[in-house]
């Protein structure tokens, strides 16, 4: 199969390209012109562009069997993220619409779910956010990116799959927001017993490639997580031990942090009405989306896609920290 990968120069993109090659596929990798792109072996065709520009994008789809759309911004203000993730996706899919390619796998995120209304197990059936605008730039962009993909795919009759990974971690990206906050020498762990929806970058790449290859993925949505066995305290402990950091871990009970956020919101509403602004940790809905102690199901991944993570947590730890 010849697969077009957008965002191929990014953290996840590089693993995806390597995994596609290992599976015997040919890859056309879309990378930005600057600053650099990875040195891949044979089988990878580099297509340099920035999806925020629409020039010459159509040719990227020539001879392609499937598209893996990973390109998105993970930092920057709301405009930067919306432009890099959503407007770029519109331009990318406009170009795809002019080609004969019909297979699209889009990489979204668990942030699109309405975490407030889920109290037990987060599954693919958990309702999505209806008002993402109070949730921060990344959530707004990922929500709208998914809406755009669904709109194009449905209108044009594409075979599409939405993949929603949890916390993607790996070499150079071991610090995740679910760990809590690092303040000076203190590691504040909000809900130390909370289970983390981890997706190691190598496992995640393997899962995305499986979605491209397997017909059972067509028309489906999958949450991409390895398991929910690992809790915050364990992840932080491994992080500290393996990076040699000497800070003090301070457990903050989840409900205490949530009560603080709810109190802050109450005061803000009383004083300033709906216009009042609060930092992420003191906004209950954003606090919940990072730390809520619920479970995460892998049932659909196993049963529908027939996928389970090739690397165990210990193997992932070794892979992540071996270069440090």
């Amino acid at each position, binding site marked *: 199969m010849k697969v077009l990968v957008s965002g191929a120069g990014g953290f996840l993109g590089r693993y995806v390209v390597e995994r596609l090659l290992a599976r015997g596929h040919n890859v056309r990798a879309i990378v*930005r*012109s*600057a*600053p650099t792109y990875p040195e891949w072996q044979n089988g990878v065709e580099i297509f340099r562009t*920035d999806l*925020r*520009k629409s020039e010459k994008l159509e040719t990227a789809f020539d001879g392609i069997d499937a598209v893996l759309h990973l390109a998105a911004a993970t*930092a*920057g*203000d*709301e*405009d*930067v993220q*919306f432009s890099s993730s*959503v*407007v770029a*996706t*519109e331009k990318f899919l406009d170009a795809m619409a002019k080609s004969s390619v019909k297979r699209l796998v889009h990489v979204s995120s668990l942030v699109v779910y309405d975490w407030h209304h889920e109290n037990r197990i987060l599954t693919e059936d958990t309702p999505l956010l209806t008002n993402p*605008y109070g949730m921060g730039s990344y959530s*707004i962009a990922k929500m*709208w990116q998914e*809406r*755009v993909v669904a709109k194009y795919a449905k209108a044009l009759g594409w075979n599409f799959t939405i993949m929603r990974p949890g916390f993607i971690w790996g070499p150079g990206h071991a610090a995740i927001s679910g760990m809590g906050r690092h303040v000076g020498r203190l590691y504040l762990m909000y809900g130390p017993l909370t289970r983390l929806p981890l997706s190691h970058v190598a496992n995640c790449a393997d899962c995305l490639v499986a979605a491209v290859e397997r017909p059972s993925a067509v028309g489906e949505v999958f949450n991409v997580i390895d398991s929910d066995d690992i809790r915050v305290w364990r992840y932080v402990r491994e992080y500290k031990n393996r990076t040699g950091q000497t800070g003090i871990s301070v457990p903050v009970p989840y409900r205490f942090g949530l009560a603080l956020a709810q109190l802050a919101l109450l005061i*803000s509403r009383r*004083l*300033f009405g709906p*216009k*009042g*602004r*609060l930092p992420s940790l003191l906004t209950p809905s954003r606090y919940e989306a990072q730390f809520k102690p619920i479970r995460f199901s892998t049932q659909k991944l196993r049963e529908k896609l027939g996928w389970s993570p090739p690397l165990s947590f210990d193997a992932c730890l070794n892979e992540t920290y071996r270069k440090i």
Partner: protein
Amino acid sequence: MKSLKSVVIGCGAIAREHLAALKDIKNTEVVAVCDISAAKAEATAERFSIKKWSTGYDELLQETKPNLVHVTTPPSTHFPIAKTCLASGLNVLCEKPITMEYQDFLELKSLAAEAGCMLLENHNIRFHSSIERIRSLIDSGGFGEVLEIQIMVHVNLFGAGSPYVDANVPHFGLALRGGVIGDFLTHIACLTHLFVGPPVDLRTIWAKRTSKSPLPADEFRGLVKGDLVTAYVEFSGNAQPAGFWVRVVGSKMQAETNLYEPPRITFRRFRSGEVAVASLIDGLVEGRDVIKGTTAAFWRKLAGTNRYDGLPQFLSQIYQALGRQEVQPISLDEIDAIARLVDSFTKPELKL
């Protein structure tokens, strides 16, 4: 009073500030938003509960016939959009800079005069609460004779992820005269015009301090001489921390404010008597003003006050004028004088 209709063209960050401010203006309704990106337009409509959105403005304007069109697109598109609006007899408020070239502004000015329409550039800085406070003190004689105004804008153009130096997608400001600094010149010119009046002499220095960047310049200095007052103006893309400092020097008093942190403003007055005691009093008063100002600035952030302090007041005055069928709050001739000053900053060879 009958409800006034608005349309916003361009759904970026500045459009959100316009829309947030419009929510608080009585008897106005944003009937539609428009952006070249369907997702941006739809997201903005959803967020601000606006019924209609579109990716094209021609039909939208004919259909909705708004009382005012807010043009919040990148500067290179202001001229054709404003021209279309004025040709249809619609009032226009353009983001700054109103046009890329001064000649284009003159064409719009003439069209607006012929059509009897409002044509405005966003000079919200003039309605900034700290600027209004300083002006009121000048009018009441608090400064004595105003001798000089210093306007200093410091923006980190080269920080991590800076859109100004994105090698993949050039910033829209690069197409302006003076590069991305051109995006800040309108505010600088607006304040210079406000305090100095018509310039009689002007000197500028443009420099590129960070050599490995796509920017034509990252530093700008200027001296503007008016009849009675002089202005020192500065843009630095390297100085930190970021700020928009305005200092007014009078024969009796000096005032300093950071327009990015309203309502912080400090004063130094002439005091007679023992110098050491006067200095101590000055220091204590200044300390009190800093604490008061920064606390209030933090409070305003928590309250979600509009980032552009003067924008709600400016928009309110425009809609008031529209409702009462009065003249626009900033005259076309004043907008012309400011646009001409911006032009002079970037073409120092021009004779004033």
